[in-house]
């Protein structure tokens, strides 16, 4: 079936067709549908800082009350997907008293390279705040009621994503860490992952999440999510991507006990304090879900996030060889790693990476939808290495 679709001006009929063809979690369906409905609308135009300050003021007034002052607002760089503004809030903090709190506004552009839900991000961070170090989250404007686009307000977290001396690519990818730092960070990296996977999500408010039924539903939701993204965004189709999607559907792993999955657990997404090499905050929970822990295990081992040590050994996330990582994780979590499930999620993760870098990256830059289309365009270049990784993984697993 070949239909000439204008993906830049999607019809209501096509959007509905995609929703029916690729069922997934309700909140993911909502944000994907919302962006398609808005796609033919205007691109992203630079926003004056004052407009964001006004939006933040309105949000805090609605959620907290009248007595506060926003001080020292300024733009923050970093990350390929969201706009960020730092500021200081002079306020009466509940349970603390008068305080000047450093905060960060994290807001979506018109379309993001990773289209996700601010409500899910907000709920997930609140849920795990006593389990692993995360930045405090204060308020969420999940519908863009107060700000131009949906947004979150975080507390400022101390630390750096890479040592000032380290070489690396944009977004913290390809970072090479010195050996001494690796040996201090790696155990924390693994321990925190084990804690996330052991967290009892049933007692948390996670209304924006669906819990997969035992069996293959967790895997099926993933394939549906990312094949829908590829279908919605790609300009040039790729037989390899179609082969991969079919392969994924044929070999979906089963899951008995779902857990919280961070889904972007890697170097570049945690902060550490340079004076004591302590991981101070885990960032970027936007892709998090209730799913299969193998998704995280597989994600960290992507070649895109790794680097080579001084002896030429490939290190997972630039920290630790894969076999050592797996062994330490099993010890810390008490879970057994199923190599078949890890392999499936490696394929799944590679597929999703290609879908977002090559498919979404193209579409949003083509339509001028972000505050940094030039970075999104630059990132498209990694997708071919990832697609070859995807091909290689399927070949090995076939």
């Amino acid at each position, binding site marked *: 079936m070949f239909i000439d679709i204008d993906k830049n001006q999607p019809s209501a009929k096509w959007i509905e067709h995609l929703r029916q063809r690729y069922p997934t979690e309700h909140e993911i369906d909502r944000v994907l549908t919302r962006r398609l409905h808005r796609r033919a609308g205007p691109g992203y135009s630079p926003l004056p800082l004052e407009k964001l300050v006004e939006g933040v003021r309105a949000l805090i007034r609605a959620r907290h009350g009248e007595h506060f002052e926003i001080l020292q607002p300024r733009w923050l760089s970093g990350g390929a997907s969201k706009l960020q503004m730092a500021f200081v809030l002079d306020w009466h903090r509940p349970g603390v008293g008068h305080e000047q709190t450093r905060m960060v506004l994290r807001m979506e552009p018109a379309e993001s390279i990773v289209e996700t839900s601010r409500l899910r991000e907000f709920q997930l961070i609140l849920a795990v705040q006593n389990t692993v170090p995360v930045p405090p989250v204060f308020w969420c404007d999940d519908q863009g009621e107060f700000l131009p686009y949906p947004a979150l307000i975080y507390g400022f977290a101390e630390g750096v994503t890479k040592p000032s001396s380290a070489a690396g690519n944009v977004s913290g990818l390809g970072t090479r860490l010195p050996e001494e730092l690796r040996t201090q960070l790696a155990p924390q990296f693994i321990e925190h992952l084990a804690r996330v996977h052991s967290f009892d999500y049933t007692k948390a408010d996670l209304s924006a999440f669906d819990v997969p039924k035992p069996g293959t539903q967790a895997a099926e939701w993933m394939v549906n999510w990312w094949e829908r993204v590829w279908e919605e965004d*790609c300009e040039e189709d790729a*037989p*390899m991507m179609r082969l991969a999607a079919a392969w994924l559907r044929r070999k979906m792993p089963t899951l008995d006990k779902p857990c919280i999955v961070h889904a972007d657990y890697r170097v570049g997404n945690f902060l550490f304090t340079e004076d004591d090499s302590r991981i101070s905050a885990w960032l970027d929970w936007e892709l998090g879900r209730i799913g299969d822990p193998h998704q995280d295990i597989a994600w960290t081992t992507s070649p895109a996030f790794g680097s080579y040590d001084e002896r030429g050994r490939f290190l997972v996330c630039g920290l630790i060889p894969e076999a050592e990582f797996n062994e330490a994780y099993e010890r810390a979590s008490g879970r057994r790693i199923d190599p078949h499930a890890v392999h499936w999620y490696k394929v799944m993760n590679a597929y999703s990476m290609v879908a977002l870098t090559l498919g979404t990256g193209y579409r949003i830059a083509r339509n001028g939808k972000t505050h940094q289309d030039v970075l999104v365009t630059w990132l498209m270049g990694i*997708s071919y290495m990832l697609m070859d990784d995807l091909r290689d993984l*399927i070949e090995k697993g076939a």
Partner: protein
Amino acid sequence: MQLRADIQIKSILKAMADVVLPAVDPSNQLAQEQARLCMGLLDLMARQLPLQYRFDVDELGRLLGLANELHTAVTKNPIDESTAQALAKTIAQGQGVYARAQADPAEVLEALRALRGTTSAVVTQVCTDEKRADLSAVEQLVMASSHEQLQRDRSWLLAQRWEPNPEALPAIETLLAPLPGAAS
């Protein structure tokens, strides 16, 4: 290859207009002027690129017309022999090239995108049906073909420095086949 010049130029121009130019010191006239010239040339490039090949082939055709008419015009009153020979030789060469310049690059791109669409649809249909006897054969075809193309895609983008082991990839010049009908 989806990371093409058109999308690169478009995103560079947006970055220049939205972020870089507003940050350039207004009192630095040289920097202001050169930033605008960079944008002007990029905009010109974006407009010219889709038509560049047609522009050149069109010019070649008209130059061949002029050269042939000149060649005829001077037969009754000959010019010096070396100049006449050089003219005849370039006419012959030019006509050969002109005869082979049959497809616009935009048509090539359109054709390859159409083939990507149709082959992808076939792959989906075959590979989602486990009962098909040809599933494995189709998978092998796609895997082999993708390997060849992805080698070229990755080599084409080596300058971005994504590759952890760039030496393992052959240079793009060694991977690209000569154009069909190219002079040997």
